[in-house]
């Protein structure tokens, strides 16, 4: 409208779709999930190293999907989507992180060991 187009198919939101970009996002995310699955089912790494590795796989797969699929970049058309996401990430991390931290501290100080239960991690 403001660009003087009457055909909605000419809109940048439509024209930014790209088969090669979607394929790249799919391949990268799939390979990372495959790697994480092989590592976890094979138990080849020490637990902490394994946890860090699969966390890395999840982070990279999410970034690849955000960039290649959801068009999160700094182009003029998409910058505000990117700004909104950048503002969203701290909320997401703080909501999960602080809740988890509060309860882990609570459990550490209050939770008695129950007979017949596996040890706490």
């Amino acid at each position, binding site marked *: 409208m403001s660009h003087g187009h009457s055909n909605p198919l000419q809109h940048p939101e439509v024209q930014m779709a790209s*088969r090669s970009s*979607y*394929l790249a996002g799919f391949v990268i995310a*799939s390979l990372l*999930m495959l790697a994480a699955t092989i590592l976890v089912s094979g138990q080849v790494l020490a637990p902490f190293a394994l*946890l860090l590795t699969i966390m890395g796989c999840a982070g990279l797969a999410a970034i690849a999907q955000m960039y290649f699929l959801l068009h999160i970049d700094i182009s003029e058309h998409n910058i505000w989507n990117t700004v909104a996401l950048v503002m969203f990430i701290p909320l997401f991390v703080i909501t999960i992180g602080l*809740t988890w931290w509060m309860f*882990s501290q609570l459990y550490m100080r209050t939770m008695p060991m129950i007979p017949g239960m596996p040890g706490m991690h």
Partner: protein
Amino acid sequence: MSSAHDKPVNPDQVVLWSDDYEGHDVISTRTFGFWMYILSDGMLFATLFAAYGVLSYSHSYYTGPTPAQFVAPWYTFIQTMALFLSVLAYGFSMASMKTGSKAGVINGMIASMVLGGVFLGLNIHDVLRMISMGITPEVSGGLSAFYALTQVHAAHIFVGLIWMLVMLYQILKKGFTEDVVGRLISLRMFWQFQAVMWVFIYVFVYLWGYMS
């Protein structure tokens, strides 16, 4: 200046800040608005991840089954691939829309629906398998959190499939109007975002649960 602050604002006489209002670009405005909704949906998942995080200690399962006993990593990996392929098919469908190819969009959408249906079918089969083993939400707090998180995601997939069905009808009935194209783009973001959330559910709930 001071008089403007003294008088109450009369909505009938208020002057907008821009005299030469040209109207918004409808698709861009709606797409950005829907992106705001999607990020709110992300906060819904954040609360469920937080609940699962505090309810996945050994004592959360009491003496009942833990994910290490009931998660099958390769089964859930196949589910992952079904969802990723569904998102890819939807992306190809949207790439066909660039040239206005109705057949391309509809074929991609049907492929996406079938693969999304495979994901949902595998999920339901997995839930029935667990229920038949007595692993139900009421067994422990840990299992309640596990079911809540995974099944809220599955509910999103179900809603997405219904939405695709509606869009197939609208493409056939109305063609690529501004409204229909805007909805197809919103659905694209919704569907792709479910794949991003699934990455976290798969790695932090299924895989991490299996290894601990």
